[in-house]
């Protein structure tokens, strides 16, 4: 898969092109250019290290939105077996922005669900850009209740710019559907692990985000509003999105420091979109680790810890 470079990656891509051209030329002409090749390779490594180690919050937001980044169904394929998708919320209909179903993780049956984005126009029409309608949240809860009934753990993948704010969604009570999920997820008696894999946009993310463990990929973000939305409100101009991203403390590192999340899952160099398989392995191993730990807790401890975890958000540490 050819990866589309982001704006800040372009100097690296230019050097890589130069290197490829030099290698071709040197092979074609039979001219030794080893020292020059070595120099450029060294320069590329150095540049990659500098760029990727020093990513700003805004650059991480851009990586989190990369269309070639692995989405929920990629993780389902790379981390789970025997996925059986279930459809419908038993009220209104189905929502393709929120695929959900039974699957096996290391042989153990669980429920897996998450927001699903599209990579092209046709997919985005189906997946609504990963912005779920009330049906998505109600379907998610229906399946979580199934998991509760059968004593199976739940894994959720969060990747949404936000729940869909359209007229139809409002008419069918999107806010109520999310609020209901928040309350009900707090009461579900089986372990829940949520992973923010890309965008963790506001209530849309929280609607499947009440979990015993909340993990975040290194280049994902989790926040009450998009940086563009924040900039538009605070500075009346979306061009300040970069400043907003910094001020909002929305990166995995910031949120780990504030104990909002439990673990940061490292990504391959340059971001998860460069290597889906390695990223899938890292996510799988984190899921197995956390679910194994959570299995040791009895129901009362599990529910109490989950409740306490969310109650302490926003505590003032003077």
């Amino acid at each position, binding site marked *: 898969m050819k990866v589309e470079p982001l704006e800040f990656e372009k100097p690296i891509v230019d050097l890589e092109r130069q290197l490829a051209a030099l290698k071709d030329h040197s092979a074609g002409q039979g001219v030794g250019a080893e020292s020059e090749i070595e120099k450029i390779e060294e320069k590329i490594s150095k540049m990659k290290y500098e760029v990727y180690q020093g990513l700003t919050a805004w650059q991480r937001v*851009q990586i989190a*939105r990369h269309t070639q980044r692995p989405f929920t169904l990629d993780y389902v394929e790379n981390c789970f077996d025997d996925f059986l998708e279930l459809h*419908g*919320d*038993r*009220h*209104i*209909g*189905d929502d393709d922005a929120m695929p959900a179903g039974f699957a096996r993780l290391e042989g153990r049956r669980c429920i897996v669900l998450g927001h699903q984005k599209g990579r092209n*126009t046709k997919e*985005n*029409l189906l997946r*609504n*850009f990963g*912005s779920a309608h009330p*049906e998505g949240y109600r379907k998610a809860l229906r399946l979580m209740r199934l998991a509760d009934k059968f004593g199976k753990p739940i894994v959720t993948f969060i990747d949404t*710019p936000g729940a*869909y704010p*359209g*007229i*139809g*969604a409002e008419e*069918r009570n999107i806010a109520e559907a999310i609020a209901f999920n928040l309350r009900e997820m707090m009461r579900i008696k089986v372990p829940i692990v949520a992973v923010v894999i890309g965008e963790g946009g506001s209530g849309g993310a929280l609607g499947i985000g009440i979990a015993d463990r909340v993990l975040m990929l290194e280049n994902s973000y989790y926040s009450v509003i*998009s*940086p*563009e*939305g924040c900039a538009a409100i605070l500075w009346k101009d*979306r*061009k300040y*999105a970069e400043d907003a991203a910094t001020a909002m403390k929305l990166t995995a590192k910031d949120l780990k420091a504030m104990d909002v999340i439990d673990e940061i899952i490292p990504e391959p160099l340059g971001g998860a979109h460069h290597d889906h398989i390695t990223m899938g392995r890292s996510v799988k191993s984190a899921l197995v680790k956390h679910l194994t730990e959570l299995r040791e807790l009895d129901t009362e401890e599990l529910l109490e810890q989950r409740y306490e975890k969310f109650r302490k958000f926003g505590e003032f540490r003077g």
Partner: protein
Amino acid sequence: MRTLFQCQRGLASGVSLLCAAVFFAGNLPAEDRAGVETEVASIRQYYVEVEALQDLQKLDLVFKCDGEPMEGVLTRRAKSTGQVVRIDLGYLEGGHGGADEMYYYRDGQVFFVLVSASWWQFSGKKEGETIDTMRERRYYFSKGKCIRILEKKVTAPKQEQLRALISKAENRELDLNTEESKEVIAEVRRKADVLPRLEDSKAVAKFFCEGE
């Protein structure tokens, strides 16, 4: 897509009554109504002229909004002199829908706009039941002023049925003086004025994503 002008040809030859537009010109005096008809006839002629133009320079500008559910393609068609004669805009918005818009220009002024939007929604009556809708609006402009809007709107349980239905649907003339019409006309005008000035994907994204 059946265009207004295909419908017009059908009517002229008496072949297709299905394309008949229902023109009710409200309380316009007879002479004003006649004036509008003359202008509409000229607009139709301009349309045919633009459609017949050969060797236009075509430029596709793809755009995607970060943080907003919207993406699409804007296609500019210009004469070798650089004068834009037609702009096609196709986009997908969140909420299971999108639109195709076509803007026609003569001497730098918009004279005709066709907006074809389609979307689906749940019926709310039976689980999983959906309703697909397609709406076409045709805007006629003369000397910068909107003189007529025609609308066709159809719904069906399946998206594949919409094309056939809309080709048979009758046009309804909208009252230009309602608040809603005024708002829609202002928006179409604004877009028609700005679109020819957007010459690269960045500018297109800025306009659609940031409203600038």
